[in-house]
């Protein structure tokens, strides 16, 4: 894949052109020591996109291996490493970094602040996350340890005990995995605290909580959820390290410990984590859909309430990953019902988005296309989620490709689509140039087709009984054609992402100049220059409604006359 087609973080200078030319080294130095929330946001997103290409390359390799039965493209060991690294990379190094990049860049701009509440903590958090990622990938070289066994971690991204015990995972691969997640976890915690403090304490005059742009609101909810989601994982990783290095017995069944406890701790993190990733996707849709429908968002208070409700409910659903472990009927029933409860606030959101589009004057620019696809795909992902939440159905399909198809529908169909929408939407603000629309449409349609070919088909492979995490299969199971189709779709997605990467670079140099407000939008980030100056706003803005730029552009019909 084209990891190298992207400029290194740092070689891409989005700051205002200065009078004197600076050397590459000076530029690089400025990027390394920066505490500017916009530069850190850009670093986060570029870092995330780099690992998106790495994780994508791993996915492509996995699909090549599975395209035909009895394939020898890679060994079973390598396959295990690849799906472990694919999962870990995509969740921690792609999802988390890109969403926090968006938050870093946009939250201060949207609330009319000059920077985050703690700029240096912000830089510290980014570099923690960045080095955590390096630590994880260093395991390819250093994971062998003194025993010369293993290389990258091969325990799955959920790392169930007792597979992670020293007896079954010798060498240091699993330690790199645990340490990398602890380090990125602290980075994430720092950023989450920073965003919360920024939203509460840095708002410009008039920006009351009920006038916050919904993007900022959802990032606040998301960061609060992160505080209590990432930390249980950190705690569990510490326990794992105690077991591995100090001969502890937390997950050691031979000394009375329990492997199921690890599962609980992991999913207490793991399920809310899905919502930590999807709430920012909602946040992006909340900005893009109204602007491209030319209507204010429908049901602003309901959207806020639904987001908070999702965050709360998501904390009580984790054991729906564990129906096959053998819990009591009461636990099963509880987790079935709590999981289905999530459908209510998410349903409210879907209806509100539809009502926003309804009767609007829709502009089908690339960001809007991605958001419309998101609406459909997220619907389906939600419906298969409801199917899987029903315990007997889950017993049948647990650990099959149906589950893989379901969560990729959420992670790719909802989150990645919205991230692309967000990048097309805010790229002009960050660089001062538009992303190319023709390439954008190619990217969208190829990615959409590739996505559906891959993941729609994957549901059927799952229903036909193919288990996940197997490196090959027998030719007589009736999975051959379907698997080949899934793999072919994967390649189409790969090509689409390469077009996107090319577009990012090409438009940076050749794109159409954007101006301050190319989409005729309403939130404060479009009030300042593109790219914004270091201090964001020459004068602290004052707002009187949820859409300050609408008020400016339409003094005869301002929003604040209607908002309570």
């Amino acid at each position, binding site marked *: 894949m084209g990891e190298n087609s992207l400029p290194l973080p740092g070689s891409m200078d989005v700051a205002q052109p200065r009078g004197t030319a600076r050397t590459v080294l000076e530029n690089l130095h400025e990027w390394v020591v920066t505490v500017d929330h916009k530069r850190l946001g850009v670093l986060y997103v570029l870092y995330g996109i780099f690992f998106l290409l790495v994780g994508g390359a791993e996915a492509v390799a996995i699909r090549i291996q599975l395209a035909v039965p009895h394939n020898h493209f890679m060994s079973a060991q390598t396959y295990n490493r690849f799906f472990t690294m694919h999962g870990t990379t995509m969740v921690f190094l792609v999802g988390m970094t890109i969403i926090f990049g968006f938050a870093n860049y946009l939250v201060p701009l949207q609330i009319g602040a000059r920077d985050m509440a703690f700029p240096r903590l912000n830089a510290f958090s980014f570099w923690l996350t960045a080095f955590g990622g390096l630590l994880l990938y260093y395991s390819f070289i250093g994971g062998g340890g003194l025993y010369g066994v293993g290389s990258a971690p091969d325990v799955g991204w959920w790392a169930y005990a007792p597979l992670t015990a020293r007896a079954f995972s010798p060498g240091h691969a699993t330690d790199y995995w645990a340490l990398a997640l602890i380090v990125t976890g602290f980075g994430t*915690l720092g950023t989450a605290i920073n965003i919360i*403090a920024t939203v509460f304490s840095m708002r410009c005059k008039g920006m009351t909580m009920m006038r916050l742009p919904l993007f900022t609101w959802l990032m606040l909810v998301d960061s609060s959820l992160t*505080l209590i989601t990432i930390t249980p994982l950190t705690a569990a990783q510490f326990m794992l390290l105690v077991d591995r290095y100090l001969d502890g017995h937390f997950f050691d069944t031979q000394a009375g410990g329990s492997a199921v406890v690890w599962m609980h701790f992991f999913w207490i993190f793991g399920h809310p984590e899905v919502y930590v990733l999807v709430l920012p996707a909602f946040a992006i849709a909340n900005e893009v859909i109204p602007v491209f429908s030319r209507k204010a968002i429908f049901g602003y208070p309901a959207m806020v309430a639904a987001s908070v409700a999702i965050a709360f409910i998501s904390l009580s659903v984790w054991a729906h990953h564990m129906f096959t472990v053998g819990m009591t009927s009461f636990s099963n029933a509880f987790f079935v019902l709590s999981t289905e409860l999530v459908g209510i606030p998410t349903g409210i959101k879907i209806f509100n988005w539809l009502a926003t589009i309804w009767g609007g004057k829709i502009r089908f620019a690339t960001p809007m296309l991605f958001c419309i696809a998101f609406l459909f795909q997220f619907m389906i992902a939600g419906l298969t989620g409801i199917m899987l939440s029903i315990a007997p159905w889950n017993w049948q399909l647990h650990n099959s490709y149906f589950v893989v198809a379901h969560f990729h529908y959420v992670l790719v169909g909802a989150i990645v689509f919205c991230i692309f929408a967000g990048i097309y939407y805010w790229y002009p603000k960050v660089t001062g140039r538009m992303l190319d629309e023709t390439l954008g449409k190619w990217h969208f349609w190829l990615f959409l087709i590739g996505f559906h070919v891959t993941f729609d088909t994957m549901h059927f492979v799952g229903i036909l009984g193919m288990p996940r995490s197997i490196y090959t299969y027998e030719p007589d199971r009736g999975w051959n054609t379907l698997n080949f189709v899934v793999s072919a779709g994967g390649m189409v997605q790969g090509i689409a992402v390469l077009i996107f990467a090319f577009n990012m670079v090409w438009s940076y140099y050749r794109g159409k100049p954007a101006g301050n407000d190319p989409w005729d939008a309403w939130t404060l980030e479009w009030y300042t220059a593109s790219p914004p100056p270091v201090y964001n706003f020459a004068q602290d803005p004052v707002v009187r409604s949820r859409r300050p730029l609408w008020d400016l552009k339409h003094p005869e019909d301002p929003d604040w006359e209607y908002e309570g």
Partner: protein
Amino acid sequence: MSAVTQLPAAYEGEWRLPSRGRVAMFGLITGESAIFTIFVVAYVFYIGKSLSGPMPRQVLEVPIFGTICLLSSSFTIWMAERAIARNRVTAFALWLGGTICLGLIFLGGTAIEWHKLIYRDGLTISTNLFGTTYYSLVGLHATHVIIGLLMLTIVFTFALMRKVSQQHAERIAVLSMYWHFVDAVWVVVFTVVYIIGR
């Protein structure tokens, strides 16, 4: 693109925002609470599940004195906070020094307790499940006490150098939030380890 002019320059009425330090410390405490919750849950779940001795009842003694010291340090730091808010730097340094002493006494108590457990009772982190959960939970809390003491000592050094004054009252208030949290966690750890778990 419509003609963008200027946003309103003046805001009628008072505009007050919460202190960013307090909000951030509150966030940190929330996250830390989740970490402690996981360790406490693990401890409670594994009570009585050790396959070999020594068991808690045989070796644990209730650290009454250390507990009293640690809990009183919440009072002394509150007094220190009050003193600096009124710009009484000497009183502040005294109360802060007292807080540090109480924290050190607590840590010393833990050190003596662990020494006894390791050398007399032969209980280490790898002996049995009780050892694993006990040292992790109490050790995690002790780590937080140490971090708190380091920060308090830095402030104390500045106070002795007369570099602390009323303008730092808010920062000290934020630091004392952390110290209160460490104390509050001890109440939970104490209850779980020395009362329920014994």
